[in-house]
């Protein structure tokens, strides 16, 4: 039972990170209809910024906040400069452009920060509490708290502010949104900016749970985040969170209890998606689109 709870917690911890990046993906997908392949690499760059600041002696929490701010600005700029010119083009074109971004950001990151392994401390310290036989680390509690806060802030932003109303309006019908005077361009830019800083947060949460920060750090996370988003239904933020947690927990339990899956744990999320999509082709929380002939 102890082992089970411990694995469950590991799973939730990872799930929180997947959910964070998946939220970023969903946010961009909802506002622009774009699947951003470069999301992981944007987060990678931001995480290196966090590392650099921390390395210069900036307190880790402050470093994360600063890098989120930088990511916010760069995310908006990327939308404005790179994505804007192809926004109306075919999905293929946009796909290739984000793939181009993926390659470019990854190699610029290596160029700027080098390919050595870097260490990033956890923002929540190394402490742990014992509850019965189960030890709850500070990192775990911190991760869960961050996810809860993140969801609350996003919900408040999207549902309770005028900016959020604009974002949702552009997502649901760009034409009509423009007609009532919402600048869809600005909204899309803000959508990318928010998503980018969510990614930065996810990266800074993720790296301390891994052996080291390298140029390949975020690629596995991106795959898991894709899985989480697909599982939840691509247009649902709630789905992204649930999807992330499910993927994380399923992975952790499979590692522990299913011996043949030992070094092929990636099977887990994809078998899971396969099964879910067989019964609900638009994910757990996705909207069904009615087609007219």
């Amino acid at each position: 039972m102890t082992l089970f709870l411990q694995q469950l917690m590991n799973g939730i911890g990872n799930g929180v990170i997947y959910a964070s990046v998946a939220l970023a993906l969903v946010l961009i997908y909802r506002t622009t209809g774009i699947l951003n392949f470069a999301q992981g690499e944007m987060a990678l760059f931001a995480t290196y910024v966090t590392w650099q600041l921390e390395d210069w002696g900036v307190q880790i929490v402050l470093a994360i906040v600063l890098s989120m701010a930088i990511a916010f600005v760069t995310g908006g700029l990327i939308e404005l400069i790179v994505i804007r010119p192809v926004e109306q083009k075919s999905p293929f074109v946009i796909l290739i452009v984000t793939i181009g971004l993926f390659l470019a950001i990854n190699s610029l990151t290596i160029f700027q920060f080098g390919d050595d392994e870097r260490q990033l401390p956890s923002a929540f310290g190394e402490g742990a509490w014992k509850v019965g036989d189960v030890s709850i680390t500070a990192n775990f509690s911190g991760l869960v708290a961050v996810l809860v806060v993140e969801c609350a802030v996003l919900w408040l932003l999207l549902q309770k502010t005028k900016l959020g109303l604009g974002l949702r309006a552009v997502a649901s019908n760009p034409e009509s949104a423009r007609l009532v005077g919402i600048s869809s361009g600005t909204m899309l830019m803000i959508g990318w900016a928010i998503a980018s800083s969510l990614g930065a947060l996810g990266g800074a949460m993720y790296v301390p749970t891994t052996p080291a920060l390298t140029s390949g750090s975020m690629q596995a996370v991106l795959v898991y985040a894709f899985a989480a988003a697909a599982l939840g239904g691509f247009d649902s933020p709630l789905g992204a969170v649930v999807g992330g947690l499910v993927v994380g927990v399923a992975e952790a339990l499979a590692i522990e209890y299913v011996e043949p899956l030992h070094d092929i744990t990636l099977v887990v999320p994809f078998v899971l998606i396969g099964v879910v999509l067989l019964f609900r082709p638009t994910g757990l929380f996705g909207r069904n689109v009615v087609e007219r002939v």
Partner: protein
Amino acid sequence: MGLNTLQRRLVNLAIAIVVVGVLLWVPQYFGSTQTTLWAQAIYYAVAAMGLNLLTGYNGQISIGHGAFFGVGAYTTAILMENSNWQFLPTLPVVVIVALVLGAAFGFPALRVKGLYLALITLGLAALFPDLVNRFASKYGTGGTSLIQPPRVLAPTWADSFIDFDDQYRYYMALVIAIAMFLLAANLVRGRFGRALVAVRDHEAAASILGVNVARVKVSAFAISAAYAAVAGALSVMVEGSANAGKVEVFQQSILFLVAVVIGGTATVAGPAIGAFVVVFAQDFTKDLIDDKPVLSPALFGIVLILMMYVLPDGLGGGVRRLAQRRRAMTLSASVPPGAP
């Protein structure tokens, strides 16, 4: 001047003859390294053609064809290394294995569309290296997943026109690729090709017209997997090894898609052009900046983005637009002044 069908066919035939002529002459002119690069472009073209059948003609996006490519490569490599087969006899086995796997993957793909499908196929690409490590590494050198079967060598009867073995491998890849392209051209022009396009453009309408949507989609998956796998087999012949690093499989999957889009989706020549652009653009950006090789993917990525700005419908589409503009100009010029 409008061309009638016969003239257009003759023009196409002439272009094809010139292209094949150039391709035949390439290894006579270039050295071993450059020839291998061209051979690489050829097997990339085969894989891109396969992906084009699925993505361009049938509208199912796959970012996982690196996995099918790998299946082909490993099938050939293991048969050659372990069972001492010659290269050519492995090809039918590769095709059969890939058809079966592709169809098996095509069935679940029936339920999933667009973006979701793209993601699931991405999972395939991410998963494949792990599977190879688990199941194929017992054949590899030192328990790794790298398999280096005996090289394919030029036979003695070819001595008169072959100077080095890379030349022979190049010609072999070229002949197989041409056969695969002719097959694809016939496939898309016929009944099956129309069904592919109909399903892509409107599934419900196609099914009302009597197209068996499920069968068409699964077949498209199987056939395109077979193309990718043959390309993988060719890569083993050309490079002398099969490998499945995480980065490589992902990159290949992306590059195939890039080749299709750059060349122009749903055209026969597009994937070939795209594959050559991708292979040579990568090679070009590799040496562009002295002693900063880490920046070459950045350059390649930027080139990709710029290309999409200038030619959103690919090189094929750009040429077509140019031709249309010229036709429109000659048409308007040939209308006599004062005519209604």
